[in-house]
């Protein structure tokens, strides 16, 4: 089983922007360890010369003219925001 220490668990939680209380970190690290241990099996597969899959069905992305096709509805865009003011999303101060 892969060992994941609490420091790594804390770092991953930070990267994922999920607050995890310090006392919950050991259990989280243990769960990561179990999952990563399970994933570890992939190391035994011979993937020499194999292309990583990009698209499961071979398809060429369609192109279209670069033009506005939708928009002009700020009220609808903001209608579900927890805090919207004067036509903008409002968030806590970002820059001091």
């Amino acid at each position, binding site marked *: 089983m892969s060992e994941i220490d609490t420091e790594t668990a804390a770092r*991953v939680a930070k990267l994922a*922007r*999920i607050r995890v209380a310090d006392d919950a970190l050991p259990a989280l690290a243990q*769960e990561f360890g179990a999952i990563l241990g399970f994933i570890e099996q992939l*190391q035994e597969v011979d*993937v020499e010369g194999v292309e990583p*899959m990009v698209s499961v069905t071979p*398809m060429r992305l369609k192109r279209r003219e670069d033009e506005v096709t939708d928009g002009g509805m700020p009220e609808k865009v903001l209608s579900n925001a927890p805090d919207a003011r004067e036509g903008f999303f409002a968030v806590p101060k970002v820059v001091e």
Partner: protein
Amino acid sequence: MSAELTKMTLAGARDALRRGEVTSAELTEACLTAIDGADALGAFAHKTPEKAREMAAAADKRLQSGDAPDLCGVPMGIKDLFCTQGVPSQAASRILEGFRPEYESTVTSQLFGDGAVMLGKLNMDEFAMGSSNETSAYGNAVNPWRRGNDEAELTPGGSSGGSAAAVAADLCLAATGTDTGGSIRQPAAFTGITGLKPTYGRCSRWGIIAFASSLDQAGPMTKDVRDAAILLKAMAGHDPKDSTSADLEVPDFEAMLTGDVRGKTIGIPREYRMEGMPKEIEDLWAEGRKMLEDAGATVKDISLPHTKYALPTYYVIAPAEASSNLARYDGVRYGHRAKLSQGDGIVDMYEKTRAEGFGPEVQRRVMVGTYVLSAGFYDAYYNRARKVRTLIKKDFEDVFAEGVDAILTPATPSAAFGLGEMADADPVQMYLNDVFTVTVNLAGLPGISVPAGRDGSGLPLGLQLIGKPWEEGDLLNTAYALEQAAGFVAKPSKWW
């Protein structure tokens, strides 16, 4: 009379509506009554009776005018993962509490454009992450089936657990589901209904709350194979708003149901014979093989050598994509925002919001995904998984190239298990539920679960058929032959 109406198949209701033997209003009212009497099943998370009555009235007008597509007037349930305009759509997550989309998903807008009636939004695992519907912010959905007289509540499976429970309990005539690793087929098998995951790209993903974009597909969950054919046709089609949706003709799948499988070759993959597989599952699989042989198909043993690596591949790729897709839930544009303390900055807002809004399984997967994508691990985990995925897909291509038309496997490694039974297991144990279904998502193929038998305690068991890309019509026909041979007609006895 009213209870009988809800038992109708989609095809039966379509024909009766067109003949004027029943109205959509009557069908809809019967379903709404059934739903109100079935709160113990936890299938419907948001009921929309007023909307349903309006839609039914409009459908009845349309039926009278003779312009009635197959779904016109048919009352359906919609999985909570589909964005439905003005109706709560929260993927069974706290983080989307209160979210009412200003738009309609492509699939539901096609269904409603055909005149289908929406009864409400169906329970599911949070963000479709789960195999038992126990990760839902709404609480559990419960399987209408029980082990004989044992009153223990069983899971309807997941993630489309509400859809499965609602169809099996005759609360609606059909439902939509979505399937990222087995989320249509496993709950269908656990509840004795039919569930189809189409080829990746057959149905538009636009407006369906994203989990793992390279694996997610919407599909029908129905009372039988014919209904799956009808509903798939209505859900499918090219959509310019989803760049991965295929610009292909949608055939009349129902017209392809002849039940004739003579000359077809069915493969039985030896790698799906798992150690410790219950004898009932093995017996059912052998019976399925015999049924298709008796129907005139050639059945042969095949090998899909990378099967063993499908689940670990999935548990890299799906969390990686989820961590990216779920980054949008940050408390700014929609849904929940945590209450902030004096002096909290924007990062505090993100972290608190996501800690409060996401349940434990979603948090776990987002963090695993973050880990496998982080600097230093990207190649070892994520890129390696994408390479193994190429090999898994090639396994299927090879057997199809050898003349195999469809592959027969069990749908699940067991019958429905008890709610709470897996609470102390580590997360990997729960992931094993998808062992037979997840390969199909990784390879982008169509797969269907058909109820085919019952276990010793009377619970339904399903068989899965896997088809070639874009050949859902042929796959449905093979499933139809299997359905006719299996003759599964059992229904759960009403206790709710």
